[in-house]
């Protein structure tokens, strides 16, 4: 399996490929991923220009370990195949498919990615895929989409188009997104892939943004799409395990390891009933804490 399938993706920041000033050093903000956009942010007559910028950025800019996702144009355009050729030749880490509706959409992209990897001599399987669900139909098909390709590491909700399709608008309360969010995270977990939330576009309401991130964090999402670097520290803060959670997770892991050796299955830690089912969660907490720079332990 490509080791990047499960990498940390708390913050995935969109950047317009047409703007050299944006793509030259976004890594200073330390997002987990950047999403270099060839689609909506790029004006129709600059679609070609964005590709040359993308190719050279991928080739020449050291993004310092930040995942480089490329959002290609929709499968209903005549742009997406060339987008994939450019992105794969440049050596991107993954492709984000917009407006995904079916497993077949993912497979079409997969075939183009395979062809591009072959054409440009890239290691087979190095380019991953994620699918953005932007319609009621896409959300309904979430589970089949999640299982469409071994390269697919996750699905993302794209709230703007999705709410239009529902014949409503983004309200700021999250009510209109509740069904999709719940459905998608369940589908993603059932399929064993990651799940990412939509952007929050009101940059003047950082408190609203914080509440939004708290909600999706509680729901189990792996991360959120970001439109401005200012949003990154808030996401990371919310996703960073709290000191008491880290201490608890450490105890759980240690206790389970020792008790297992002693043949004890159920016991208590800090008054809470603990069994083997807690093990993976505690391990995940420690891994996240380590990735967030707040845990330097050895578990």
């Amino acid at each position, binding site marked *: 399996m490509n080791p990047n399938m499960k990498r940390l993706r708390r913050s995935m920041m969109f950047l317009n490929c047409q703007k050299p000033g944006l793509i030259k050093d976004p890594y200073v*903000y330390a997002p987990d991923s950047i999403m270099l956009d060839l689609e909506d942010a790029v004006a129709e007559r600059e679609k070609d220009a964005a590709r040359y910028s993308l190719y050279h950025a991928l080739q020449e800019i050291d993004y310092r370990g930040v995942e480089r996702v490329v959002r290609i144009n929709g499968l209903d355009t005549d742009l997406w195949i060339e987008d994939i050729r450019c992105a794969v030749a440049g050596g991107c880490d993954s492709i984000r498919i917009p407006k995904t509706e079916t497993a077949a959409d993912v497979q079409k992209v997969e075939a183009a990615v395979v062809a591009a990897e072959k054409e440009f001599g890239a290691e087979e399987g190095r380019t991953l895929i994620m699918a953005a669900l932007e319609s009621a139909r896409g959300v309904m098909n979430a589970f089949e989409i999640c299982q469409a390709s071994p390269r697919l590491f996750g699905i993302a909700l794209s709230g703007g188009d999705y709410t239009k399709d529902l014949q409503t608008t983004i309200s700021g309360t999250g009510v209109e997104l509740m069904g999709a969010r719940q459905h998608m995270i369940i589908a993603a977990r059932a399929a064993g892939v990651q799940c990412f939330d939509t952007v929050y576009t009101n940059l003047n309401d950082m408190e609203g943004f914080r509440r939004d991130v708290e909600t999706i964090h509680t729901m189990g999402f792996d991360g959120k799409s970001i439109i401005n*670097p200012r949003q*990154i520290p808030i996401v990371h803060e919310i996703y960073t395990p709290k000191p008491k959670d880290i201490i608890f997770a450490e105890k759980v892991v240690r206790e389970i390891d020792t008790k297992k050796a002693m043949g004890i299955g159920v016991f208590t830690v800090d008054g809470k009933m603990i069994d083997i089912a807690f093990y993976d969660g505690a391990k995940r907490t420690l891994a996240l804490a380590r990735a967030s720079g707040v845990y330097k332990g050895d578990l």
Partner: protein
Amino acid sequence: MRNAVGREIPDEILKATGKEPFQGNNYKNGAPFRRQGPIIRPVMENDHNKLVKDIHEALVKCRAHSGMTISFHHHFREGDLIVNMVMEEIHKMGLKNITLAATSLGKAHDPLVPMIEDGTITRIEASGVRGKIGQAISDGKLKGLAIMRSHGGRVRSLVTGETKVDIAFIGAPTSDDYGNLRGIGGKTNCGVLSYSHVDGDCAEYVVAITDCLVPFPNFPAHISMTKVDYVCVVDAIGIPEKIATGAAKPTTDQRKLMMAEYCTQVVVNTPYFKEGFSYQTGVGGASIASTISLTKIMEERGIKMGFGVGGLTKPMCDLLDRGMVRVLMDTQAFDLDAVSNVINPAHHRITAGAYANPFNKGAFVNKLDYVILASLEVDVHFNCNVVVGSDGVITGAQGGHPDTAQGAKCTIVICPLLQGRIPAICTDVTTVTTPGESVDVVVTDYGVAVNPNRHDLLECLQKADCVPLKTIEELRDIAYAIVGEPDPVQFEDRIVGIIEARDGTIMDVVRQVKHYD
């Protein structure tokens, strides 16, 4: 001769100016000198009238002549009308070879360029020069030298008599008919008149120019009638909206916010951050943001500031209003909030001399714990350049940079690694204005570098693990890896300006830029 920051200062310049090369920050510490005073014409008759009908009459009465030195302050910043008004009259009178000894010159003074070209103005002494005058000097249009000196250095040059001002023009928001001047109360308030104080003390003639004549006595006076020869009332001395704008909105630029956060972390994790600490910061987005984030930590830890000093802004005044700083010492008001805050009894006006003069018996800057500064360039020797652009053209001012940097126990320079394609952290700055020995910490968006002379600070920051620490060479290498190593800018041989150190020695020279083809 090579000076203490490794800059070659040609003998001809040492000879022409009678100056020494820079030999380190404290070279003149304790060196005695006699303070120089001006010629004074006493006013004893009780019916003496100081009011003159216009600038022309003032010039005539003050015996304006070719070759004289005149001075101005820059409290009206980009809204200043005084310098151009006086220079136009001098130009009309056909006077030549004027030395313009302003505290600073900016874009507002672009109209003076033709007077440089025709020989009306042949020397400039200022903190620095922005706008077209800077370009003109760098193009070699000024016949004599431009001397760039810090706010403190300027006071020194006046009190030692190195600069002899024939006529000082002091724009005053309010004045009475006998020359008691205040920085507030009129239609063009600037809050304080700190930079002019020394001109009142040292100039042979002092002319107050106001657009708001008030009944005698205009008190408490910021500059006293005892120092003023004439008072001239004009329609307008400045453009209020360009003097001080509303407080800058706190920045939303994440890059600046990150640098502000690093800066705050440096402050709160070094030993001077304790009850009663002192602090100065500037007006840049990151500086203001760092004051705001510092405030939060002061609140959390219950630590109060003893004094804040310098050019002041709203966030500093907010600290005062909230009782989180004991007193503010004001040399310049950068926004309307700072202008109006001067009515707070704990908001004190101080003179530029008290603020930063290296040649008195101790200035405020010497008592600073922290100063937060910006810089156009910082090199691997921690030297800063705040006057000459990376393209070789004069474009900025020393201000209080070298004064506060030397004085403060912890000098932090905030500087994005790259300005467009230009690497701000470089091998050698274009021109040295502040020596590396004064600079302790450099904060960039790519990491924080500590001057190796300060391993005490480095140790604190390592222990706190609060900022991404890099060496200054690492930062330079990162910059060069991204943008490529810049070619050195080509200069002509001719020296058009000197960067004077605080103590009057020569820190560096500025040469005419070569035409690029």
